[in-house]
């Protein structure tokens, strides 16, 4: 979308500024520091605007879901947004650059977050999903792995940034891969394959952006495909260890052929597709979504929230959502380009990768492009942990902007 040119110069400016283009034209020797910036200047509007619009859109969808789904509490979602905004402001004010030398601490924090749900007394199962903790005395439940995604971004960005854009030592490359494997394996233990894949994808994108050799990246990819194939084949064969859980294997089979399991996951997928498809151009309108409203669409406010959105608002609504995400991510890419510090670039790359993967996975599974996994749609899905994390991620981008010029 950034590439669509307009004939008018003024229009072009507006368009460029929407994606943060004007920022790049600042003179390099700008001596402004965050302290003498105006509040408006210390906010990167091309990211905050689409993010806020997404939150608003998400609130509308959750509100409509709350009309028929008792689990979807609009108030709780609002509280989640409120906490998220506070947390985002805190992150924004925080000079992330100080983290670049604290990789060891980041790794420890990451591990602690991953291990928390495994501690008896803290661990908590919500809707059959492990990976939650309940904070004693307050009774607040959280998914620490959500926060761990952000910590992992900082961790990997800080590590990779040390190589200054060129990773040409195979040992160093392997070290990075192993570091990334730590949070990934820990989260698989929980087990939460969905979040694990997000972390893996995000970390991998940071390593790639950080200058890993093409042949190594491709080899790693090939090895991983091989491992995945082995895992799947082993899980499908009697006598060999079933590494994937039965439901995970079934989801993969259903993804290939939804008619295999017309009552379970195949049913869910089919109902989601019907919801999306029957939305048509303009959708059925708020509260008229028969698929979601009458219970045919499972988890309509969480995992399958996109199907609900697409049913209520149609192709137009889908376009608005995808467009907002496009705007958000392209603006981030622009920011990444104009930042000079590798750490800053890589933090932004990490956040974009996370969003991109979650959107691809969540929307993709509703329309049969991706297998079913329980990954929330950023800013939209019902759930405080997700909302908190995603708004904090926006705060991370804002922090990068706020501290972009001053020397590290």
């Amino acid at each position, binding site marked *: 979308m950034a590439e669509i040119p307009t004939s008018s110069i003024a229009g072009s400016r507006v368009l460029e500024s929407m994606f943060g283009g004007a920022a790049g034209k600042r003179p390099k020797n700008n001596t402004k520091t965050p302290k003498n910036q105006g509040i408006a200047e210390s906010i990167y509007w091309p990211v905050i605007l689409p993010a806020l619009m997404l939150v608003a859109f998400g609130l509308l969808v959750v509100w409509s879901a709350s009309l028929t789904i008792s689990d979807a509490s609009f108030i709780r979602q609002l509280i989640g947004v409120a906490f998220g905004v506070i947390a985002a402001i805190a992150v924004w004010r925080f000079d992330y650059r100080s983290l670049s030398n604290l990789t060891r601490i980041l790794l420890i924090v990451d591990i602690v977050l991953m291990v928390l749900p495994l501690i008896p007394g803290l661990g908590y199962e919500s809707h059959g999903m492990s990976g939650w903790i309940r904070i004693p005395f307050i009774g607040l439940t959280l998914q620490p792995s959500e926060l761990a995604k952000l910590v992992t971004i900082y961790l990997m960005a800080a590590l990779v940034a040390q190589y200054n854009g060129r*990773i040409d030592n195979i040992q160093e490359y392997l070290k990075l891969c192993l570091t990334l494997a730590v949070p990934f394996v820990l989260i698989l233990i929980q087990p939460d394959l969905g979040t694990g894949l997000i972390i893996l994808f995000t970390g991998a994108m940071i390593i790639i952006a950080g200058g890993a050799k093409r042949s190594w990246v491709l080899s790693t990819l090939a090895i991983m495909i091989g491992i995945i194939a082995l895992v799947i084949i082993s899980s499908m064969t009697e006598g060999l260890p079933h590494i994937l859980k039965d439901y995970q294997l079934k989801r993969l089979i259903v993804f290939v052929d939804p008619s295999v399991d017309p009552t379970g996951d195949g049913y869910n997928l089919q109902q989601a597709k019907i919801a999306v*498809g029957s939305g048509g151009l303009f959708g059925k309108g708020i509260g008229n979504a028969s*698929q979601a409203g009458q219970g045919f669409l499972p988890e309509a406010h969480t995992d399958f929230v996109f199907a609900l959105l697409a049913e209520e608002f149609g192709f137009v609504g889908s376009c608005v959502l995808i467009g907002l995400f496009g705007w958000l991510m392209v603006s981030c890419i622009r920011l990444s380009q104009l930042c000079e510090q590798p750490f800053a670039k890589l933090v932004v790359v990490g956040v*974009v990768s996370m969003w*991109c993967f979650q959107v691809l996975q969540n929307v993709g599974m509703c329309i049969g492009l991706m297998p079913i996994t329980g990954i929330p749609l950023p800013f939209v899905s019902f759930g405080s942990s997700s909302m908190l994390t995603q708004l904090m991620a926006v705060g991370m981008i804002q922090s990068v902007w706020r501290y972009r010029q001053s020397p590290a």
Partner: protein
Amino acid sequence: MSITTLLFILGIIAVVATIAIVIVRVLQGRSRFRVDIGSPQPQARSAEDSSNNDIGFKGRINAIGIGVLAILATLLARLWSMQLLSSREYVEQAESNRLRTITTRAPRGRILDRNGTELVTNRPSLTVVAEGTVLDDEFEIQLLANVLGMPRAAVRRKLQDTVEGAQSVRTVCVDATRSVVAFIAEHSDVFPGITVEQRTQRSYPFGSLAAHVLGYTGAVTEEQLDASRNSTDNSSIQYESGDTVGQAGVEFQFESVLQGVRGERNVYVDANGAVTSSVTSLPAVSGSDVMLTIDASIQQAAEDGLQHAIEMAHQYGYVNCRKGACVVLDATNGDILAMASVPSFEPGAFIGGISNDDWDYLNSEENDYPLMNRAISGQYMSASTIKPLTAIAAINNGIATPDTPYYCTGYWTGFGGAYGQYCWEQSGHGDMNLHSGIIHSCDSVFYEIGKDFFYSDNREGMQEVYREFGLGTPTGVDLPGESEGRVPDAAWKWRYFSAYSDEDRQWKGGDCTNLAIGQGDLLVTVIQMACVYMGLGNRGTVWRPHVLKSILARDVGTVADYTPQQILKIDEPASNYDLIIAALKGVIYEESESMTEHFLSLSHEVAGKTGTGERTGEDLTGWFLAFSPVDTPKYVVAAIVEEGGFGATSAMYCVRDVLGQIYGEPDLSEVEVSDATR
């Protein structure tokens, strides 16, 4: 141009323009835009690139940006296809997801007797039904057996029963108690595939009374389903699997009247199947009631009379006697006042699906096919009851006059000594004529007539008269399964015995003499003979026998009355009728004192005829036919008792009992009939 097409074209233009501009910019080298993954070698720094730590970052991040856009574009393309191109298909699926048609069964019409007494009605019934898959779950079967208080084997048998169709649910228990229903509802998790349905069941206040007339109902069969599906007639009933339809008797004959019209409700349901709103609704229209000509009290008398006759037959030593039939007609319009057949059955056994065992029992020869309505389906030799028609034929063909003298020695040798035949009275009747020949049922008289026909110009004169009175043709009674009987002639014999030698296939003199006394190959039904005697009593007028009196719509009243149809107007000289009717009256009052004794207590005169059929290997089968009053007949009563001995000592009791019920004058005579004709 639709908005969809417009959007599509705009989308294509945007994509093409984007690609074109990117290519142009890259080719011209104007762009600092660089796409790369990884860093195979140190990047050459361009002139503009003054940054000292920007080693390849730009290209790689651009690549990521393009990747992001590609992913979003893929999602949009897929959404485009689903939400715009295939939307209609998905909308249909969404509709069919939530749209259900609920059918409500229409209550079946009642069946009433002529006085409005309910012979068949409906009652609500809670029915436990199960899917066929329950059969695979031994634990569930045991549990169900415990709850229903039935043996496990019985539950298993019910589950295996596919009378209602292989795919449809099986009825496990009809008339489940409230507590059973509540238990199953509360523990639905341990009873998968088992549901309780509120159905209406046929109810028979009089038990087996008139079972053969009423027939029975059952689940619609596959053939009936196919027939209704393939029917091009829009007004015909569209059956659904599991529907209850008439399978025999009046239930079958008047199915279209009794069935009613199913109600249909289109509703929206949620994912759990709970109804959220109603779309359209069409109430069920209950079936119309059918009022029959049957009179319950006469019907009861006919059935009791048959039992009485069979008991009497047993007393006379005919211990194999088990079967019989009785028909009572109104001679003025053809109303069937009673129609009984023994052995009978309980129509109630068919409620909720008959068990295989019961079905086998009802269809076995050793149990004498209880489902068979012998009054219309049974074909018998007429025996002596045919003699009045033979006499008419003889007069019409100039073979005899009322005054022609006959002499019976007890052994008739009309075809020569080698072909002698006994009269039933082997001591001989002495001097006879047509009148006394009928009264005493003298075989010699009718052998002579048969012989004369064999040698006459009109060899088939007897058959002509039999057919004139309706034999060999169904009466057209409004019940299923009527037989047509058989009037044998030379052509028939030639055809029928095609496997025999030409000599044996010839029509012989013996065929004529057999035919004249109603033996041999002549076959008639009870209802046919009742019509013959109606024609004799009415002097030629025969009304179509029928059971339908009127059709009553619920809450409306009579919608259609049956109009009596005259099927025969037999044109015979009055003198013939005078002769026959006098002779038939003579049978009752002159022939046998002991039999007359039974009829003296009736205030109305009766005319009638006995008959006794002989068949090798079987006991004698007795007939008795009567009409009353003699001059203006109102009632015709016909009875047959198979293997019950003489007509006068078996079937007569049934006829007398029926007349006693009609006139309110029961048979008080204790006299045993001993000297009556055959």
